[in-house]
């Protein structure tokens, strides 16, 4: 079915409004993500945004598996959201078990496969020439989405920007972040601060040390962060 541009946008927005009406709330960034996932027949969706530092930040997810995969990308420094943020283009891995996927994401791909994901479509969120982040859509079947599905997904990605900005110009994203910036993410950045003070190194290096530790010990980053903040794990200068 060929959609005229305006009809497509109207349809996507009406779906978002419908979702919002179900909880009697205003349309938010989360609704845009959910509708994006529906358009691409995804089982779950994650949103990651660039914040001007080297690693984009996982912001929200529709379910535990998606959240885990978004945070894993951050820990590993590899994955679809990172590729989108760097390249500014849609990333579509139609078969996560393929050698293409493993070459691209040697550690992330197996984890995604373990989680039951078969294909991943990461939709860029763009403001002009600037890529602000990605909507990662995790699908439980292999294959490439239709042109119309992708077109709808792009409308959703644009909507993320529109919804993140309130009408008076102040960012409503701040509220989304306050709501979604979970204890996990807060802990990770707090732990980076602790490590930074312990080792007397800058924050980016401290974060890298944390991530490396999690990877080397095969542990989840937010669990390591919890240990660091509770002083169960400390980082010290080598003597």
């Amino acid at each position, binding site marked *: 079915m060929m959609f005229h541009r305006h009809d497509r946008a109207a349809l996507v927005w009406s779906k978002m409004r419908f979702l919002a009406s179900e909880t009697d709330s205003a349309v938010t960034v989360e609704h845009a993500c959910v509708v994006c996932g529906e358009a691409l027949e995804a089982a779950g969706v994650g949103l990651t945004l*660039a914040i001007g530092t080297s690693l984009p930040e996982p912001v929200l997810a529709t379910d535990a598996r998606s959240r885990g995969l978004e945070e894993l990308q951050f820990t590993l420094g590899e994955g679809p959201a990172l590729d989108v943020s760097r390249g500014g283009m849609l990333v579509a891995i139609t078969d996560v078990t393929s050698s293409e996927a493993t070459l691209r994401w040697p550690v992330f791909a197996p984890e995604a496969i373990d989680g039951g994901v078969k294909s991943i479509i990461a939709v860029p969120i763009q*403001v002009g020439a600037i890529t602000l982040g990605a909507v990662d859509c995790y699908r439980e079947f292999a294959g490439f989405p239709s042109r119309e599905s992708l077109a709808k997904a792009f409308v959703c990605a644009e909507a993320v920007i529109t919804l993140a900005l309130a009408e008076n110009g102040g960012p409503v994203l*701040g509220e989304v972040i306050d709501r979604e910036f979970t204890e996990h993410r807060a802990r990770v950045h707090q732990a980076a601060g602790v490590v930074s*003070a312990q080792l007397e190194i800058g924050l980016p290096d401290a974060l890298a040390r944390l991530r490396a530790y999690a990877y080397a010990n095969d542990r989840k980053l937010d669990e390591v962060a919890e240990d660091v903040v509770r002083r169960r794990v400390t980082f010290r200068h080598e003597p």
Partner: protein
Amino acid sequence: MTDLAADLRETFVQLADTLVDDFDLVEFLDVLAYRCVELLGVHSAGLVLADPRGSLTLVAASDEQTRLLELFQLRNSEGPCLDCYQDAEPRACPDLVRVRGKWPKFAQEAENAGFRSVYALPMRLREEVIGALNLFGTRPALLDDEGLRLAQALADVATIGIVHHRLLRRQENITAQLQTALNSRVIIEQAKGVLAERLRVSVGDAFGVLRAYARSNNRKILAVAKEIIDRTVDIPR
């Protein structure tokens, strides 16, 4: 290549070069006004732009007389320049005598200033009209069809340049706003961790100290957080 062709080429390039950090709108339009006089053989040029609410203001004029005449149009809400902007269509008045009935005040004032022809061209890109370019001559029928086409082309290039520049600025603002919102939260959490380690307290207590310090020094939490991370501030227990 003739001098005129070379000047034209140079002018078009100048008008297109708006996506630079130090772009200055007033200077840009001054250049356009000056170039119009130089290239089209008109006596003078004026430029009006609309503000976000649609009110026109004079932004550039190639001489004082023209500046006053443009202001006169705006103040009296009468003249080819205003009609041109409202309808987004050119208003060519090769002979001011003939339009005395249409814009009586303006025609009188213009004739007093020594002008005999006026051409108002819309600055327009598709559905968006951002202002008008006004050209004045001291004799009737100063611009022929070719001159008018060229003038419109200059106005069009300038319009595209301005619209693109505005769009770029808006995109940069949006991006900065959104990234700041998220980055601020990250910085505050990081500062909590740094302070917790330095003071040997829990993260929750560290935030309490940070907040108290900010309050008693009448500073924003985010600013203090940044300084904690950069080690430019030492907060005692």
